[in-house]
């Protein structure tokens, strides 16, 4: 008896081992190396311990461009994430309606943007909103604009377009989680509420939202995490411009390690850890806020 259990245990560990070793070598080891690297400065052929050790970490808070990229990222976070999640939950509610015709078709259509690759949809948005692009042509021909407007060349419109693009791309993705969550809510609960005379507004806030809470927390954390690591849109849609007004943290980190001929790996690693800490803190906060069990 004991030997069989032992054998099973051994087999279990045996199955775990390859994946664990790979993760340790491919993920954990580089992470640890990056911690050391973030404490060093100099060219990548000749990295020296920074003096003082925290040099890279204090340096980033004096870097106007980095602070601007943090500001931009938080701007996206504060504006885009709430709009996207509210839209997603409304769409999920609509598409969960049992009487709706062509439900499958609509669900597919809303989810479809997620099937497009990040780079390709960024490039499509870029050509849509180009000065000679489709949107400008339509607006000028409708007489709304007199001349073509340089959407991507002006700070506020460029930021707005990034936010619009993000909402288009990710709303369907979050909607699917809400749909799955909604399907787990028993219909009898709604029936009971109806019998007690609750209108649909009340049902939504008193039943749907509380019962969806785990899903909402998960999507909030995922959205925060995704937005803080936003990269493709900034690089491909606006290339951080105009005048760095749409650059994100990840884009700036990339520029410091591979862009523009500077291989400033120490500083880039330090900034990456700053993002890591931010994600950890924000996720912790949203979990605390959402979790009222005790």
């Amino acid at each position, binding site marked *: 008896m004991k030997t069989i259990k032992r054998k099973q245990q051994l087999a279990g560990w045996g199955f775990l081992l390859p994946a664990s070793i790979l993760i340790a070598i491919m993920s954990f080891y580089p992470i640890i190396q990056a911690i050391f690297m973030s404490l060093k400065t100099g*060219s*990548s*052929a*000749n990295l020296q311990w920074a003096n003082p050790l925290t040099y890279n970490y204090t340096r980033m808070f*004096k*870097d*106007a*461009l980095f602070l601007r990229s943090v500001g931009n990222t938080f701007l996206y976070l504060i504006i885009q994430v709430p709009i996207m999640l509210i839209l997603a939950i409304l769409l999920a509610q609509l598409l969960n309606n049992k009487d709706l015709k062509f439900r499958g078709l609509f669900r597919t259509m809303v989810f479809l943007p997620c099937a497009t690759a990040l780079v390709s949809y960024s490039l499509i948005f870029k050509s849509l909103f*180009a*000065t*000679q692009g489709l949107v400008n042509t339509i607006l000028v021909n409708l007489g709304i604009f007199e001349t073509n407007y*340089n959407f*991507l*060349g*002006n*700070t506020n419109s460029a930021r707005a377009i990034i936010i619009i693009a993000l909402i288009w791309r990710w709303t369907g993705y979050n909607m699917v989680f809400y749909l799955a969550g909604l399907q787990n809510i028993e219909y009898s609960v709604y029936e009971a509420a109806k019998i007690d005379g609750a209108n649909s507004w009340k049902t939504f806030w008193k039943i749907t939202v509380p019962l969806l809470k785990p899903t909402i927390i998960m999507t909030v954390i995922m959205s925060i995490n995704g937005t803080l690591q936003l990269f493709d849109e900034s690089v491909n849609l606006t*290339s951080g*411009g*105009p*005048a*760095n007004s749409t650059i994100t943290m990840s884009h700036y980190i990339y520029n410091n390690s*591979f862009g*523009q*001929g*500077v*291989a400033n*790996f120490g500083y880039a690693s330090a900034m990456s850890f700053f993002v890591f800490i931010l994600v950890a803190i924000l996720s912790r906060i949203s979990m605390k806020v959402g979790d009222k069990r005790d």
Partner: protein
Amino acid sequence: MKKKLLSLMLAGALAVTAFAGCGSSSSGSDSSSDSSSSDTASESTDDENTLTVYAWDANFNIPALKAAEAAYQEKNPDFVLNIEEQSQSSDVEDAVTLAGSSGDYSTLPDIVLFQDHYIQKYVADYPDAWNTMADADIDWSDFGAEKLSYSTVDGVHYGVPVDNGTVIFAYRVDILEECGYTMDDVTGITWDRFIEIGKDVYEKTGKYLLSMDGDGNDLPYMMLQAEGASQFNEDGTPNLTSDTVKDIVDVITRMSQENVLYLANDWSDYTDQTIMGDMVAGVMNGNWIIPTIEQVEANSGKWEITTMPTLSGEEGYASNGGSSLYITSNCSNVELAQDFLAYTFGGGEGAIATYDSALTDGGVITCCLSAGESEVYQQGVAYFNDQAIYSKIVEMGGNVKTVTQSDYHYSARSLVAAAIININQGAELDSELASAQEQLEFEMGL
């Protein structure tokens, strides 16, 4: 039953995508092992007549290298030049960064083509990656001093110049005529006069007289060089708040506000929309922009080139972009590499043959003065109204003033470009340049 079928199909799709993933990754490792095997071939000493080189443009510098190979085969019939095409210039930079970061230079080819503005930083950051050209048999006085200033570090020659980045100002002669101007009216003028003409041209034809990529804005650098000024002091510290810089940024912002200059959002907007989309009556950039201008066949014969305007009204000369060939420390046959480069691109016996075919096949214009005297250079070019533009460009290249270069050229460029965009959106010139200066000092760790 139906559900089973569906799940089977889904599982199948999953498996296919998983395999597709494997396929692409394994093909990736294949290509890397390919290149490493060819590298080992170049390392091995049993083949004494083969050199490997990285270059990136199949329409421009690769034909030049093929021309050099053919020319050197006159001297050494067994010689083989193994050209490995990279998709873009930054691939070469990344290859050096990678080799330097890992401390293993054996992954590098014998020779690399390298962008001029980056090489100083790469020599400083990765000193072990390079072999110098100090012992090569090259008459350096045969090259423009400005071009050599990039590939010379602390008085030691590291590279052999390939193409010439001399700035041309190309105008549409027909549009100028329509507005009552000739080429003489736009040669040797001040920028203020240029703005007057540009306003006139825009009013009469709706075309801008100049365009530029507003994100990677090369105008400040070129205009400063034409004044003999730099964005950097001689000791290497940034100098973005000098009066000359202020005057030039002021000219640029006035130009764009008066519809003389169109600042595109990015590089492809600049080439595809403004130049190939026929939005402009003038193009000013390094002469490598000529193939882009020539894309519009309908305008053949309507262009001519001349020098740049300056603040004072003298004829302006500048240079932008360009690249040189460098021997890496991984080269096992340095003598052969040096001899090859000296014989061909370095102005040796094979130089005329090399540069003539490089010009006809790839449009690469030499900065080797003696090679520029060959007959091919004297011929008129139909697209440019039969003007002998190539000899003119070589001649103009000799007049370019040497200005202080810096490892932080591109940082300065993007900061000044950002300042110009902000000024156009209403910010103050002085404060924007001051903050650009501050940020650049920060990036340089000053």
